[in-house]
């Protein structure tokens, strides 16, 4: 039995503790926002916040996150359903194409802007290593700067 919270809701699962958090979320908790893209922490589609830190959940054994607070893409909007600043920037810049990788980007960028509310392009390049096969990178970069601008005004 492993206990933790997901998007502020308590979760209690009885699974093999070596099962990756990604598959516990998707198969045992029905939280489908985090995606399987590679299984080896290369692409970032599975990223979630674990105690606030952007982490590839596909290689994180659930047994090692007991007591942690997990936030998935579904948890970025507020309780009323209002999109987060980062999600709003994604809409305004019309970032996603197929969209499959974007939950991971939204998580990674949320963490980046928490640590560094106004990153330079070089800092963005260093921090955001997710893969997008559709090639939305130019819009992702613009959306990050837009979200940073919104944060600086708030």
């Amino acid at each position: 039995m492993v206990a933790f919270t997901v998007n502020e809701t308590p979760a209690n699962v009885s699974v093999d503790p070596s099962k990756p958090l990604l598959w516990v979320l998707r198969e045992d908790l029905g939280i489908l926002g985090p995606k399987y893209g590679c299984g080896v922490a290369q692409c970032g589609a599975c990223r979630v916040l674990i105690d606030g830190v952007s982490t590839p959940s596909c290689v994180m054994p659930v047994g090692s996150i007991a007591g942690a607070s997990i936030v998935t893409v579904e948890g970025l909007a507020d309780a009323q359903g209002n999109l987060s600043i980062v999600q709003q920037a994604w809409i305004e810049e019309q970032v996603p194409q197929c969209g499959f990788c974007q939950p991971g980007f939204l998580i990674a960028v949320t963490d980046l802007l928490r640590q560094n509310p106004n990153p330079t392009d070089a800092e963005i390049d260093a921090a955001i290593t997710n893969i997008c096969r559709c090639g939305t990178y130019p819009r992702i970069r613009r959306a990050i700067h837009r979200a940073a601008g919104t944060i600086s005004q708030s």
Partner: protein
Amino acid sequence: MARLMSRRGFLMTGAALGGTALVAAVGGVGYLATVDVDGLDGFLDGDRAVLNAFLTIHDDGRVVINVPRAEMGQGIHTGLAMVVAEELELPFDDRIRVEFPTEAHPAYSTWFNVFQVRPEEASGPVVWAGRRVLGLLGFISTGASSSTMSLWHPMRVAGASARQMLIDAGAARLGVPASALVTRDGFVRHEASGRSLSYGELAAAAATLPPPADPVLKQRADWRLIGTRQQRVDLPAKVRGEPVYGMDVVLPDMLHAAIRHAPVFGARVSRIRNEADIRAEAGVLDVVIINERQVAIVAGSWWQAEQAAWQLDVAWAATADDATSSADLSRRIHAALDVAQPYEILDAGDAATIIDANAQSLVEATYEAPFVAHACMEPVNATVIVRDDGSAEAWVPSQGPVNIRVGVGTGAGWAGVEVASVISHVTMSGGAFGRRSDLDVVAQTAFLAARHRGRPVKLIWSREEDISRGLFRSHAAARLRMALGPDGLPLAYDAVVATQSVIQSVASRNLPFNPGPDGDRLAVEGLDKLHYALPARRVRSQDVASHMPIGLWRSNGYSFNTFFTESFIDECALAAGKDPIAYRRALLRERPRHLAVLDRVAELAGWGNAMAPGRGRGVAIEECYRSVVAQIAEVTVADDGEVRVDRIFCAIDAGLVINPDQVIAQIQGGALFGATSALMSEITVQSGAVVETNFHDFPIQRLANAPEVIVSIVESNEPPCGVGEPGVVPAAAAIANAIFAATGRRLRSLPLAVTETIGERRTRTVLAD
């Protein structure tokens, strides 16, 4: 579902069909004469009024627009819904929902991809008959950048037809002539009296009226939506992480499956050495060989199935290709360039004789491109249920229900189960790029579902299976020759390409017949350079079979032939002592549409402005998918050979543009897809098996090495043209030409660079010595 007042059933019967066919045959009537049998008539179903095959209006004003093409990132669900909303005078807001219909209606057929004509361009009984055949086959697929090209006119007609029906219903309700009514923002208004009725109020009455014989389309000057930036209808769900993809399908009582394919394509399973051990693994319910060639594990969860699959110890039968390597395949493809008589695609102006007579001025070069994978972000998957009564239902991120329906029948057949009916749900795709037009994963899943009747089975290929056991863009080589005149301009052009026929490979898996490899237009597209003024030209192709399974891949033949030919045009310009843009301008002197695009991209990029040492610009232009697209790449090559693409400028004449922001997005994404392929992508073979398995050895550009892409849309009088693939097409040649400008090195093989790992999830690309 109760169908009231539907003329469709009647009109689809043989007698009526024959009558209309006769009219079409005698009169040579075009598309509009056929639409009334194709479902532009309505019916009622509960609170919804189906006005035609593309449009449903609910009592409460909600609107469902059917877009029978897969949304895999292109934005077509938005653009095509805009077309209906424009003609219907409907506000483009969140009351509109876009769906991929489950009914395989004839009006949805993708006949553009077969006949290469837009519906509204076609006329005559031959095309009409073809349309009927495709309609009856339910041939609905997404590809060849054709979705907007092939549906924009039918969906305009659908919107205009429904609008007229709503006006007629309003006229009856208000007791005024239809001519006294106007439509605006979802209402039918009687201006004289100020009375108005909403579409929701009128929809039920409108759906029972006959559709107009010749609906009046809006004039271009009256458009309010088309040509404006509209937000995509699918993005709110996508940024909230809602479960819209095939992989997200969850059904009651669902089983999960993982799979292992033979390392060497074509190998059969001899035996599973540790089957008893695998069956004892946690959660495993079934271990089974599929069609003699794959092993699947069915379990209570995918993670359990995949864990068990890693433990599999399979003995594969020997094949003739167990020792084949990339070097062997490369030798084979180069040898094919020397066959005595390649298949002749085109021979105009006696090119061979002119070339023989001008040996001194001959420019000749040989180029090569490797196998590459699709690597869609969503790995290949499908979910299928087969019930005891013979009905089946499938949920697949697929490029078309035709692949789903045929795939389910094929796979169930492997299990000895005959499927009587298939309901196909085309989900959103996490990328597709041609990969999802194959029935492979559908058939595998249907086989498993037929063994476990009554329970849905979801099969997901691991990323390793997806990259190394999937389908590939073929490798290719070409030898190009050009005889130049005293002014440096071409006298004759001679091209031969050697590649593995994609159509033959696709047909072998998906069709009951095989057209054979010769004349495969997807192998030679991009080779003929018909837009260039070449006084004589000869184009030939040679098929080179291999054990590798070839699939459709974003821009197919253009993805290598345009790299070959547009690199070669730069080599000819160099031999002629001409600037690459000036040289192309001379070759395009009778092509104003191409010149406009070329001039636009040159202006955008500041062609001719000085660049620092180690930097260079390269250009390429192509006509493809009815669009004309040109790119200029800017590269920097460091002293240690590191090559970076800094920016890609792109101009495109894509005809009429419906949602300009999404055309820009497609061209940006296409250019980056092309840049990754040009610099990084290569599938290699050792001992018959693909070496690459995941993103660590089949790398994709990330933010740190993705260039900025600046796009300019050239105004056009053409109807909508393709945009999904054109962005990919010029990228490789533009980058290779830029590297030449920066370094003086002419690179004739893809990928242009070697990818080095320089840290966790970080790479750089370096020119080989």
